[in-house]
């Protein structure tokens, strides 16, 4: 079963003359353990596609299934639970809670919705931080971390609940070349190592070779898929 199936998904902002079609009858399937790179110019609808796939935004029409479950008809509470349990997000900018340490930023996703932070959760957080090269930084607040380290913590948080789908928005936009490469190496390693599906939105050419497949979006329309053009590491 595919990790993500989007069928005839349309998202329109505004009304009447002010209408903007952000997604124009998009069809997209992402298989389990597939790493998809979504490219396109600014304003082409990439982030909208990501947010629809992650239940942050409801499409105007069409069907979105994650793990075979239709998510377009979830109410707000169900959508929040879905995001917590089924999706790992890495947002474009630095995205950590500033008053929580790196370890706590990973653990916080286990806190809400009635779950508990038990010994297993702490062990998993420490293990993830180790894998991300942040073993000694668990007790640091975000303000004590570099940009690359913060992005790695965000990747760790996205993987903390072992979601079947990871959605990553412009992971390298705020990083220099070296840090960007490190983060993408790490991201690919973690995602492929866990066998989960991922969509990585980017307009950074350096990222293109890290995916299994690459699709392009222009004016809300997906162009034909293309195989990845480069290999990594």
């Amino acid at each position, binding site marked *: 079963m595919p990790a993500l199936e989007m069928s005839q998904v349309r998202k329109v902002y505004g009304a009447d003359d002010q209408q903007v079609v952000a997604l124009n009858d998009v069809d997209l399937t992402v298989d389990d353990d597939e790493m998809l790179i979504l490219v396109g110019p600014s304003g082409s609808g990439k*982030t909208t596609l*990501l*947010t629809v796939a992650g239940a*942050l*935004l409801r499409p105007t029409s069409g069907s979105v299934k994650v793990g075979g479950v239709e998510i377009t008809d979830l109410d*707000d*509470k169900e959508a*929040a*639970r*879905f*995001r*917590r*349990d089924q*999706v790992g*997000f890495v*947002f*474009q*900018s*630095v*995205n*950590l*809670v*500033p*008053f*929580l340490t790196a370890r*706590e930023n990973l*653990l*916080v*996703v286990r*806190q*809400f*919705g009635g779950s508990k*932070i038990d010994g297993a959760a702490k062990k998993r957080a420490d293990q993830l931080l180790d894998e991300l090269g942040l073993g000694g930084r668990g007790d640091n*607040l975000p303000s004590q971390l570099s940009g690359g380290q913060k992005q790695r913590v965000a990747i760790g*948080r996205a993987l903390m609940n072992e979601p079947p789908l990871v959605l990553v*928005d412009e992971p390298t936009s705020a990083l220099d070349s070296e840090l960007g490469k490190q983060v993408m190496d790490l991201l690919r390693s973690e995602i492929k190592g866990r066998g989960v599906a991922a969509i990585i939105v980017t307009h950074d050419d350096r990222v293109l070779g890290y995916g299994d497949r690459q699709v392009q979006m222009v004016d809300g329309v997906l162009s034909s898929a293309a195989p990845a053009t480069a290999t990594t590491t």
Partner: protein
Amino acid sequence: MYVAFKEIRRSLGRFTLLSLAVALLVILLLFFQAVAGTLTSGLTGGLESSSADVLVYDVRARLNPANSLIPAPVITQVSESPDVAAVSPIGLSVFTGTTDGDEIDVQLVGGDPTGPSVPAEIADGRLPQGPGEGLFSGSGFDNPIEIGQTVSVEGIDFEVVGTADDAAFNLLPTLYVTFEDFTSASQNRAGIPIEVAPSLLGVIVVDGADPAEVAEQLTQSIVGIEALERPAAVDALPGVGQITQSFNILYVLLYIVVAIVTGVFFLILTVQKQDALVLLRAIGTGSRDVVTSVLIQVLVVVGAGAVIGTVVTAGLLQLTRDVFGASLDSTTTTLSVAAIVVLGLLASVGAVRRVLAIDPMQATRSGAI
């Protein structure tokens, strides 16, 4: 809860400051309440703690005991009225007395110690049984006079044989004596054997009778008197209403300040951490969880402030006990603290509304987080 307590821990300074601000307001509130309680108790305690169900005034006194004089025939008329079980004259007058060589103002209350002229309950010792004995009750502003001490008034030595709590008149040391001793002290002060009339009559109604109805019936049936049931007589005492009203205005102002301080603090805090809240909502935290987190912080901060304020006030009142003897009333304190906590929660409605308005989509906007 995890996020709420972690944030408090990491921003201990600002949360402590708010708790201290709330504590300061609680100190002011409880201190005012204690002082007001002592003031009103010193004014009303004599009537409030009386064993009389109904009090009878001269109608011309307009319910002011200091201006009231009851003619002798009225005592008989009241005694013979329906539903009246017992009547006692109550003589009230302020004298200059001495105790341990010090001059003091003393309120004498003369009456029948076995009738409705004395406090319903005594704290220690016994009621006076004859001439030269007195039951003492002080306001919080007096040095206490203890059992065995002697108070001399107009050449009469009164040995204190018992004490009662909160049964003073006019914020003065108050001595309950027999009506005969009261008459003697009044005549000694006048220098001639004047006729001494009681200021009030204390009435006990028969079992099952309604004091308010008996008071109404006495007022209607006997010319020249006005009778009130005891709680109404307490409320009608001159100055009590004004004092209570003035302090009530202060209480309301303090409650408003608590609400504003708490509400503004948490609103500012919510605005400052808007990005963190957007992120939490985006990664799957329900709005209920985020709101709960805010309310837990309000409870902790306001609750801690209330506890600190109560403890400090209790300590301050203990230290100043010799000055005006005010103390915290547990019921009033509990209600005030509960009101402050509830107000704090209500005041956080602005912060809660802001949390509920968060759109997790903002997490995807560049620079939003």
